[in-house]
């Protein structure tokens, strides 16, 4: 046994070194951040608000006022085909065929009964409905994870924002979003996305799309507040989210989604 001791020690030392090396590599710089008392207090207070979105596809009439308002409120080139929010139209025929479109992102509403160039007679339509889409402000946003320079980030209220002065325009975040909620701002040449109208919510206003929806199909709420009407619906009714399988934990909840919705 005595003979083995130096070897054991040597081994122990080796293992220790390896472990420390692995730990040093594995820990991100964030792990070294130690919260002071005031910071810790601020952190607790800050988590009192987490914005979520609720879309009722039963109610949406496809008027497109949300898209129109969003583009004007957020200064997104009006005639560009890209948009922070958009409305999709689904027509499921009785033979099971599904037709989908979103002309001009739904900015001008749906004023033509023809979809994908097909005029479907009402007798052949099994289901027809509209699905408004926007950034899901995911709890695990893959778009933020992949930004190489820290130009996009999530704030304590859960909203993912883009730093227009720091974005290098590589497009990685656009590729990483499973919902295609991102695009390049055609005028500023930086990544662009919905931020639940952060400039409005900080002032106590509702996002432009919510305010301008005539039928209440779009609502915003604070999931941390049990008395919030949106929270009540999310907690008590049968809601679903889009593309849950990607593990992004999306925070835009939907009522009345169909399996044909992409």
């Amino acid at each position: 046994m005595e003979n083995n001791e130096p070897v054991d020690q040597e081994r122990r030392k080796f293992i220790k070194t390896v472990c420390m090396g692995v730990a040093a590599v594995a820990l991100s710089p964030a792990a070294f951040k130690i919260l002071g008392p005031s910071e810790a207090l601020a952190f607790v207070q800050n988590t009192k608000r987490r914005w979520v979105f609720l879309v009722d596809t039963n109610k949406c009439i496809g008027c497109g006022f949300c898209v129109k308002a969003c583009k004007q409120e957020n200064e997104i080139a009006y005639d560009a085909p890209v948009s922070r929010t958009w409305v999709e139209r689904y027509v499921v025929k009785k033979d099971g065929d599904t037709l989908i479109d979103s002309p001009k992102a739904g900015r001008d509403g749906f004023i033509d009964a023809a979809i994908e160039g097909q005029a479907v007679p009402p007798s052949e339509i099994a289901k027809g409905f509209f699905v408004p889409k926007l950034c899901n402000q995911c709890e695990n946003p893959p778009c933020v994870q992949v930004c190489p320079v820290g130009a996009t980030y999530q704030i304590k209220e859960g909203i993912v924002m883009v730093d227009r002065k720091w974005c290098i325009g590589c497009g990685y975040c656009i590729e990483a979003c499973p919902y295609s909620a991102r695009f390049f701002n055609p005028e500023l040449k930086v990544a662009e996305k919905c931020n639940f109208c952060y400039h409005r919510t900080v002032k106590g206003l509702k996002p432009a799309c919510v305010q301008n929806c005539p039928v209440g199909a779009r609502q915003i709420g604070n999931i941390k507040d049990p008395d919030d009407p949106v929270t009540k619906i999310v907690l008590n009714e049968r809601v679903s989210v889009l593309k849950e399988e990607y593990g992004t934990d999306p925070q835009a909840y939907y009522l009345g989604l169909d399996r044909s919705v992409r």
Partner: protein
Amino acid sequence: MIHPVIVHGSEWTVKELFVYPNEYIYWGIQIVMYPFMTGLVAGAFVLSSLYHVFARQELKRIAKFSLIFSFALLWAAPLPLLLHLQQPLRCEEVFFTPHFTSAIAAFGMVYSLYFAIVSMEIWFIYRRYFVEQAKALVGRKGWLNQARRVTYGVLTLGAWDIGHDAIEKDEKVTKILASTGIPVACFLHGYAGFIFGSVKANAMWMTPLMPVIFIVSAAVSGIALCILFYSLINLWRSKSAMPKKELDAVRMATKYLLIFLVFAISLELLDMVFRGYTAMKSWNILRSVIYEKDFLSIFLFQYFCGNLVPLIILLRKPLSMGKILTATTLILFGVFMMRWNVVIGGQAFSLSWAGFMHFELPIIPHSLETYKEGLLGALTIIMLPFLFFFALNKLIPTLEKD
């Protein structure tokens, strides 16, 4: 508005059926060029390291050339990214505020490290030459000679000792650098594969095999380009048939090329078979892309012309110069098509899985954007390493003379 507002991507994307409004082919030809170029860098370096690390004497003649060529390629490798960026003037942020959870953030670190290793390796190999040149040029007339003398003097970094011991030390360090360079080169290219393989939103890209496939195909393309370019230079210099020595070196290199090629083909086939066999939800749309939309560029261009034909050519003995030139050209084309099929093919379908996007490469540019992201931008990138190489050749001899 005075300027027409053009959405990035709209000039080369044609949509079919239902595609989300914000979806375009955002990663165009320059993102095809980027892994292609870094792949060439890594491959050329691997070839040179086969000699420096594993002492493959028969590769000696082509090894030095490969190292310098790898260096020339290295200068051009980040340029596709630069041309692709919408805000190229902010590129330094990748070095200053790297967000390491992003694969692209690794670029600054890995590229710089690799650049340092290759430069140092070249310095140790050519230090003796720098010293000899600087000494020989002393007292020679003419400003050009004096400028050259000063340049070589600076390049020696003040290390003038070229005695036996000093040179032996150089060789030792060269070997260490060459061996550390291999993993770094693999990492440089592996992370390029990781950039794609880790995008969970994209069913075509997301596979852990992606970095491995990228590394192996990198070795294939880099070795093929070195063989091709080296042979052409030698053919041009000797004015007639290739010297026996050079032909032997090239033949030896093709053996390694074959090994890597077989690996690359196996991995790519494994990936495709696996996708078809497991047939996950996304397979429906992937199948229509692979077997219908991109059938020609995947099966005819990449697998048949780029893999199968050169494989058969290289397997048939004896290896003539003509066969080698044809095979390596086809292989380079095949690897390029593989990058194309990954990058463009990965964006050929909508994330809604209900529609398709077709890429139309801008041929004749009508704006800076269509130049950068078009055929001419890609050709500019391809030409640059050769220009760098000829410039480097003025400073240091890369080809053995005897």
